[in-house]
């Protein structure tokens, strides 16, 4: 009786595998659909039955990149995202190090407060900052956006990096200190090099979040807009939407996320849950 049971068991496993693959395909479908849409010509777009097979064209990408908004917006997104990320790492990594290696009074309250900042509703941030940047004349500048974005990158970096530092064995750092290294020397000679993989994945994750951010950039800029704002502006209401070109813009917008998802499959769980 053991044998037929095994057979039915393996058939069951195969059925589950097929179901999972179908579900995975359905989840992937919208992304697939926008990617192939970005290679379709206008004729293929307006065909009444959706075309799965067609002759691909790069004309949509050409249109998207020729549009005055997109390239400057990409540049703005890169400048703002990278600056806010670097500033966040510079300020956040040392703070994370202190949180992971030392006990001091109110440490947990402080950590909890930093975590809670990640949950601030953006609307409560956007309105006062809008008012403030206008009144000090920095509205629509890189500086305003970079500083406001610290509210996103800094708490994230502190939380994730303090976890990472906590996993570095104390013994290594203690040995360095016995050898006469100061706290500062131990930090940048021992702990930082050991934490490089963590810094890379946390940094990329923060960058993707900043690259994706829409609401704050949308309110705080009018000319120095970021990529999500520029792409959103392509779908004006009440007008004919140039779908081919918009598909290409969307693909450009999601490329960093797709790369991140493929490269950092393994670390994503620890990044998101914290």
């Amino acid at each position, binding site marked *: 009786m053991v044998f037929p049971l095994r057979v039915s068991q393996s058939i069951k*496993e195969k059925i589950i*595998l097929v*179901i*999972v*693959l179908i*579900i*995975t395909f359905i989840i992937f479908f*919208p*992304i697939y*659909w*926008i990617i192939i849409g970005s290679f379709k010509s206008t004729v293929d*777009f307006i065909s*009444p*039955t*959706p075309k799965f097979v067609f002759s691909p064209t790069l004309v949509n990408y050409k249109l998207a990149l020729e549009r005055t908004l997109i390239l400057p917006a990409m540049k703005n997104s890169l400048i703002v995202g990278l600056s806010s990320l670097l500033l966040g790492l510079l*300020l*956040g990594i040392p*703070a994370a190090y*202190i949180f992971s290696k030392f006990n001091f009074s109110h440490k947990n309250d402080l950590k909890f407060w*930093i975590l809670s900042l990640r949950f*601030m*509703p*953006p*609307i*409560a*941030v*956007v*309105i*006062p900052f809008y*008012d*403030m940047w206008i009144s000090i004349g920095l509205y629509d500048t890189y500086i305003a956006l970079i*500083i406001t974005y*610290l*509210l996103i990158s*800094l*708490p994230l970096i*502190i939380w994730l990096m303090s976890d990472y530092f906590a996993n570095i064995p104390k013994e290594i750092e203690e040995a360095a200190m016995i050898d006469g290294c100061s*706290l500062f020397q131990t*930090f940048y000679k021992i702990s930082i090099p050991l934490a490089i993989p963590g810094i890379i994945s946390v940094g990329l994750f923060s960058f993707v979040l900043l*690259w*994706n951010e*829409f*609401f704050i950039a949308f309110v705080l800029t009018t000319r120095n807009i970021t990529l*999500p*704002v520029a*792409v*959103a502006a392509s779908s004006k*209401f009440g007008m004919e939407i140039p*779908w081919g070109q*918009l598909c290409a813009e*969307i693909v450009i917008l*999601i490329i960093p*996320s*797709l790369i991140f*998802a*493929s490269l950092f*499959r393994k670390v*994503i*769980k620890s990044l*998101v849950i914290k």
Partner: protein
Amino acid sequence: MWRRTFLLFLLPAILILAALSIYPTIKAIYLSLYDINLFKTGSNQFIGLTNYVHLINDARFINALKVSFIFWMITVLLTLLFGLMLALLLHGHIKGMFLNLVTTIFIMPAVMSRVATSLIWKFMYQPSLGIINYFITLIGFSPLDWLANPSTALFSIIIVDVWQWAPLLALLILAALEAFPHEIFEAARIDGASWWQIFKNLTFPLLTPTLLSISLLKGVESFRTFDLMYNMTRGGPGTTTETVDLYAYLQGIAFGGEISYASAISIVMLLVTIVLFTLITKVYMKWYSRYE
């Protein structure tokens, strides 16, 4: 010497975060007590709590609260439900190459820009050329104008949110499932427990802390609706998909310029988030201490 390094490491980050979070909060409270309008110069009278009193009588605000709450409730429940179902389906059945493929694809929607996901679905929801209506007509139903129809608009946006988050939540739940020793499930199976008994008496209680912490994550996330609503419907048709943050934006910045009134809305929003955050954390801590 140690103390100096300690402060040098910690203080800059803390001071900047304090400035960036306390300033806007105080400023928003301050603004909400005046009647400042961006488009009218010279209007800056102190009016106390008048803005808040107006809020209670503002039908459009009450409607926005209702829409936000419906969106919040349904998206949290559905993402958790689908996430749990997917995780159970994956647990112990999918391995190796297939698991890598599934994981990569399940992460993708969650790390994508909300602007991109809104527009991708808007593309698919198009009334005449959209792929969804094509499939719908293939199986014999009549096509719908998903985002322009008051009875389907909010539901259509909820689907986008569930698509974006349920797969990631499934991976998080799966990670928790994999952390349990699989012998306990084997033992229950050998003892003749049915699938449902194992789920009800073993899996679900074990997963409760994970599900609570995930619902906290998703619960706060589901309050952020601006990107979706703005890019898919602008709150329409009518005000059927107008959530609180979209309404505050429209009043305070886009059309009204009533920055004081919008600040009052954002303060209410902040209070609701704080209450919710504290409540769920309390419940979570209680469960966590029980299971650890």
